[in-house]
């Protein structure tokens, strides 16, 4: 497998072009071409497709796309070129498993197949900002207390000592350390000191602060994982390459991250499905990921629960499950906020579709598009686990029926979804337990979904 310098060499020698030229003259035409050539067709009536031949064509289209467009480096203004052979080799030789966590909390992230009865890997949490340390502490402890949780994200901090956290500034560095300390204490209180933390801090947007804070003396462990991102679409910067180089040299886990956008440069659901798949390949070729982390969403609605996103990701998950045996975590976004019925309906639809399609790993939906401060609680993590375990009992056909029924409950509200509550409004901040009202709502929605045929607790 090529090293980072081999990758970087491609960024020094690929064809030179502006970013706009890459977007409009290379990427857009190639996506359109592969969608047409490989006959990828959206079927709105079946958000959970069962066309295995089309899933395989999505994989082939993704290989074609990556080898045709390359990956653009925004710092050298060149498109790194990869041959089809290199792309296929990346899929074939990528890691089959990823080990995270320590001691009793060691977890092995593996791939899954389509219609796989094994449970998915669970990442819970979000980088949603917590306005107080005690909220962050309670939330993380609540996540860690869920036995099936394999790793977690920790809340973000947007101020330290009253100073705003600016990307690339010392406040970002100090905020990271503070968030990390809170998280490490919280997982110990939950009796899970070795639990892996992914993206210790969502706050560090810039490599220098991320790297500075990512060190053993501050509590970070090689067995944690770090998200190393892309720029939409199919682009990378020195920042990301520096992070990857640092983490690889240290021996820490790299989660190659991408946020494919339906409605962006890839166009509609067909191009989106191909792009979601292509990113897993890019994650190996460029980021040398120990696993892959995709957070797909609809460009206009900024959520993952629209019919076309559910379809596109289902197809990409199936393409990967059948052809790219690399652990991939799918991290969706909800339109509705926490402590709303709609949030749980969205979770149910997304999980039914993607888990039955073979998603190796899945994350709780980020409530309210992840923009509401204090807008997450451990309850969403708990539901994600329960829903993931239930979905694994089903196959795609059954999932499709259920997704259609669940979508009737929320689809027409996506554009105007309820923002939901803050942590301190639906949880007791002192005890860290859900309030009675939230607990009742949770139980009621679960009962409703169980009545539809979702096998909770099976």
């Amino acid at each position, binding site marked *: 497998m090529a090293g980072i310098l081999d990758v970087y060499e491609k960024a020094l020698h690929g064809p030179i072009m502006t970013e706009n030229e890459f977007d*409009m003259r290379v990427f*857009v035409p190639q996506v*359109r071409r592969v969608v047409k050539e490989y006959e990828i067709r959206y079927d709105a009536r079946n958000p959970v497709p069962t066309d295995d031949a089309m899933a395989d064509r999505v994989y082939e289209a993704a290989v074609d796309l990556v080898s045709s467009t390359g990956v653009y480096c*925004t710092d050298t203004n060149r498109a790194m070129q990869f041959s089809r052979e290199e792309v296929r080799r990346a899929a074939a030789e990528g890691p089959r498993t990823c080990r995270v966590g320590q001691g009793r909390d060691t977890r092995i992230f593996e791939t899954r197949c389509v219609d796989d009865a094994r449970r998915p890997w669970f990442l819970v949490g979000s980088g949603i*900002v917590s306005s107080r340390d005690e909220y962050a502490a309670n939330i993380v402890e609540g996540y860690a207390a869920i036995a099936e949780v394999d790793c977690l994200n920790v809340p*973000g901090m*947007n101020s330290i000592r009253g100073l*705003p*956290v*600016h*990307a*690339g500034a010392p406040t*970002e560095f100090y905020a990271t350390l503070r968030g990390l300390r809170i998280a490490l204490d919280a997982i110990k209180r939950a009796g899970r000191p070795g639990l892996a933390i992914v993206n210790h801090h969502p*706050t*560090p*947007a*810039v490599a220098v602060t991320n790297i500075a804070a990512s060190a053993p003396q501050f509590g970070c462990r090689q067995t944690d994982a770090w998200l190393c991102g892309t*720029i*939409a679409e199919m682009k990378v*910067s020195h*920042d990301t390459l520096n992070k990857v180089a640092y983490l690889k040299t240290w021996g820490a886990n790299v989660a190659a991250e991408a946020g494919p*956008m339906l*409605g*962006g*440069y890839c*166009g*509609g659901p067909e191009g989106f499905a191909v792009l979601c798949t292509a990113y897993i390949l890019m994650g190996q070729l460029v980021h040398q990921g120990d696993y892959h982390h995709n957070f797909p969403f609809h*460009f*206009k609605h*900024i959520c993952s629960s629209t019919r076309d996103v559910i379809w596109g990701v289902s197809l990409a998950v199936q393409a990967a499950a059948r052809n790219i045996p690399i652990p991939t975590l799918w991290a969706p976004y909800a339109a509705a906020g926490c402590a709303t019925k709609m949030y749980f309906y969205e979770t149910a639809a997304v999980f039914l579709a993607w888990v039955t399609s073979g998603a190796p790993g899945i994350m709780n939906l980020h409530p309210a*598009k*992840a*923009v509401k401060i204090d807008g997450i609680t451990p309850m969403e993590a708990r539901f994600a686990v329960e829903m993931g375990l239930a979905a694994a009992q089903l196959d795609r056909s059954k999932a499709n029926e259920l997704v259609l029924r669940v979508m009737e409950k929320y689809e027409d509200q996506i554009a105007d979804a309820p923002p939901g509550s803050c942590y301190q409004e639906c949880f007791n901040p002192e005890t860290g337990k859900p309030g009675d009202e939230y607990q009742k709502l949770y139980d009621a929605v679960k009962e409703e979904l169980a009545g539809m045929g979702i096998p909770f607790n099976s």
Partner: protein
Amino acid sequence: MEHSDILATLKTAIIDGDAAMAADYADKALAAGVDPLMAVEQGLSQGMTYVGDRFESGDAFLPELLMAAETFTAAMNILQPALEQMKKDRPPRGKVVIGSVKGDVHNIGKDIVATVLGINGYQVKDLGVDVPSLTFIEEAERFNADVIGLSAIMTTTMPYQQEVIETLIAKNLRDRYVVIIGGGSVTQQWTDRIGADACGRSAVDTLEKLGRLIKRK
């Protein structure tokens, strides 16, 4: 060739994102004596409205919008001199300096806003991404802008939106510019807190709000 056919083809060129055809028919329009303003309003703009409506409804996506805008520009490069000569060129509705703030390399939303404003009569200078706060102000002064548009997608880059406004205040320049902010995490609460004039939820929302704000100033 009939004028109506020329206008229809200009509209089609926009819808199809065919810049070569648009430029060709812009030339044909002038050669055939079509009023260049009519070519814009009843040809090109009709196509842009069609594409814009489809983009808003989710039936067309970013590539179609950007290709339509590029096509519009290709035709306008031909028609603009004629409009100026006939003194039929419309003054810009306003001049906008836009960019993604320091530390933020996300650009797609910002690019869409810049495109939509540009095709709706605004003169737009796109500063790109990772733009230092002072650069926004220096470029706004140089460009004689009416509006400064600040995009920030991440919670850690949103403080730079505040920094631009604070710097404008410190330099006694705040009243000179309409400041509109946007980005996935930007809320009305944040907008009010930092003293921005408005928060654009989408490109169309930004267009509507700017229209009202510029009239007021």
